[in-house]
């Protein structure tokens, strides 16, 4: 079996001392930011990117990946114990998790989340390993026209599945694409929209955008509310083990959650957040067994299923990134940036040109998941202590790490001025009710899209019909069109809004 050879190679890479350490650091940091409300994985990964310059690429990616899936574990702790989403994808976990904690069953809730996540993470990793190779084969058949259409599909998919106004999200993508074009045009050498500022000829740094918009913008928003009193269930976590009855309810829920998460993770725009929402909705639709606690009052299935889903979703969302080089969500867009920093062009060639990186990363995810169970269940006490740290100590530290991270990308204060601008822009976005994630996706894909559009059009001698006459490209575009039509159908539209309001 080729798969096993590959996995063996991967584990060989992942089990080196250095990579184990970085996987551990990643998981630890991920849990940390997952536990702390108000700090998301996007801002953290952006903050830590500069710190990975000095690392070998495998170690850097292993650590960054660990932050992403680690955050899914940590987020559930906060959701269950404090009734705050430590991480956006834990919003639905709060509903039943917190109720369980109030009834003194915080332990089983945490265990359900942790064990469900571990199972889902393992399955997600296996799917990633199994699907990566065949998908890569397909990707090699792609020409520029197909790539362009694929990116269109990816971007459309990202907004269709996201929450909020569709047209505003599309506009944010276009805005992101435009911002991605700032800087020197590779074909003609013309510096576009750089206003004769030398730093801008290299383009806007995506780290400055990510940190300004996701880091500063959100801190400012958080500070505009009064600091609330949080009720933390610190002393009440005892007896982690769920009962046999709990297991009976949990197991099917975990299986369902894992399946939903794995599927939604692969789709563009999917990933952890959507997976958790969908899993909870489905769990609520299933019939309650006699004697089971209703949903919203501390049903263990309401914790196990979405937590499994967000974890498998975060694993499988690596599939489009690693095989096609197309990031399906904002965190993956940052991973593209991380790979580019280390001179790796994301795409199907990664698997053949850097097999040790590719399989090492996948293997490390399994190891990371195992570490996370240990970090999150026996060591839960440490994280609970962390929750008592007040926000007024946290946010200056976050601002500081953003500033240090931004400066150290180029050792240039210009980036600090830029991040200030994007901080204001980010707050403006929040005030205007527009989602910043599509902007980041567009920003990363902008130059790639232009390049492929140009090449496709050059090959077709200026004939736009090339996008619909090539069968692969045509079907990708058709899929994008179908997606758009479906969400604009009135019946689906109201359902979609309902699904995201339901909390």
């Amino acid at each position, binding site marked *: 079996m080729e798969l096993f050879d590959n996995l063996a190679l991967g584990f060989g890479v992942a089990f080196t001392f250095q990579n184990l350490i970085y996987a551990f650091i990643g998981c630890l940091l991920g849990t940390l930011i997952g536990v702390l409300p108000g700090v998301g994985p996007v801002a953290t990964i952006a903050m830590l990117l500069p710190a990975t310059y000095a690392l070998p690429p495998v170690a850097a990616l292993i650590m960054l990946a660990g932050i992403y899936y680690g955050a899914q574990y940590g987020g559930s702790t906060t959701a269950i114990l404090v009734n705050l989403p430590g991480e956006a994808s834990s919003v639905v976990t709060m509903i039943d998790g917190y109720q369980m904690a109030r009834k003194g069953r915080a332990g089983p809730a945490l265990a359900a989340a942790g064990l469900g996540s571990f199972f889902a993470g393992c399955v997600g990793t296996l799917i990633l390993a199994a699907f990566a190779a065949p998908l890569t084969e397909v990707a090699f058949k792609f020409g520029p026209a197909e790539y362009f259409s694929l990116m269109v599909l990816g971007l459309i998919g990202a907004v269709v599945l996201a929450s909020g106004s569709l047209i505003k999200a599309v*506009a944010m993508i276009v*805005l992101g694409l435009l911002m991605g074009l700032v800087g020197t045009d590779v074909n003609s050498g013309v510096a576009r929209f750089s206003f004769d500022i030398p730093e801008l000829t290299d383009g806007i740094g995506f780290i400055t955008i990510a940190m300004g918009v996701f880091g500063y913008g959100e801190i400012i928003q958080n500070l505009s509310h009064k600091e609330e009193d949080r009720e933390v269930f610190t002393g009440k976590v005892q007896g982690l083990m769920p009962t046999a009855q709990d297991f009976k309810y949990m197991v099917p829920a975990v299986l369902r959650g894992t399946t939903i998460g794995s599927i939604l993770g692969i789709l563009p725009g999917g990933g952890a957040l959507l997976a958790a929402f969908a899993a909870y909705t489905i769990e609520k639709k299933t019939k309650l067994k006699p004697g089971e606690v209703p949903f919203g009052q501390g049903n263990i299935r309401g914790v196990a299923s979405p937590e499994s889903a967000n974890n498998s979703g975060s694993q499988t969302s690596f599939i489009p990134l690693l095989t096609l080089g197309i990031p399906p969500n904002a965190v993956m867009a940052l991973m593209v940036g991380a790979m580019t920093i280390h001179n790796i062009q994301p795409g199907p060639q990664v698997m053949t040109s850097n097999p040790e990186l590719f399989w090492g990363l996948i293997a490390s995810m399994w190891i990371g998941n195992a570490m996370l169970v240990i970090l999150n269940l026996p060591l839960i006490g440490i994280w609970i202590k962390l929750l008592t740290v007040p926000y007024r100590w946290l946010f*200056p530290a976050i601002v500081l790490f953003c*500033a240090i991270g931004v400066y150290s990308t180029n050792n240039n*204060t210009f980036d600090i001025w830029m991040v200030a601008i994007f901080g204001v822009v980010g707050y403006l976005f929040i005030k205007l009710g527009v989602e910043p994630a599509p902007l980041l996706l567009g920003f990363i894909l902008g130059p790639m899209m232009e390049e492929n559009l140009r090449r496709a059009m050059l090959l077709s001698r200026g004939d736009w019909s090339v996008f619909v006459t090539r069968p692969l490209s045509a079907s990708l575009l058709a899929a994008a069109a179908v997606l758009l039509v479906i969400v604009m159908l009135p019946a689906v539209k109201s359902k979609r809004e309902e699904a995201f309001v339901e909390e």
Partner: protein
Amino acid sequence: MLIKSQKDFFSGLMFTVVGAAFAYGATGYSVGTGGRMGPGYFPLLLGVILAILGSIIMFKALVVHTADGDKIGKWAWKPLVLIIAANLLFGVMIGGLPSIGLPPMGLIAGIFALTIVASLAGDSFNLKEVLILSVILSMGSYAAFILLLKLQFPVWPTFIAG
């Protein structure tokens, strides 16, 4: 005409203005033809699309009724100004400000400046607490970024470190 959704109206306005600006800027570069696109082609196309999308959003904001008018609400000026100021001050401390003759003061001074100014944005401000936080952050940053990660930072003011 009444604005029925403030958030949508002004975000539409933003998209329209930015799109138009990009489109206008793109005409300054060679646009080329479909078969041989110049540097201005794609930005011009996207700028026009963005401006159109923005206008649709604005139009909808004037026509489609919303329950509460989707008010933008109050701006949180205090955190906005203070957080951004803290960030800028950090930049000044690291890079210096030649126009007023301020030399680079280094990382540690920057951390203190940033922490103090940023903390002012919170609900309560306790100078002693903030100073302790600054010391902890300074030590932590020095250990993590300078010793461990070996990032290139001026740590102390240039007139001391030389």
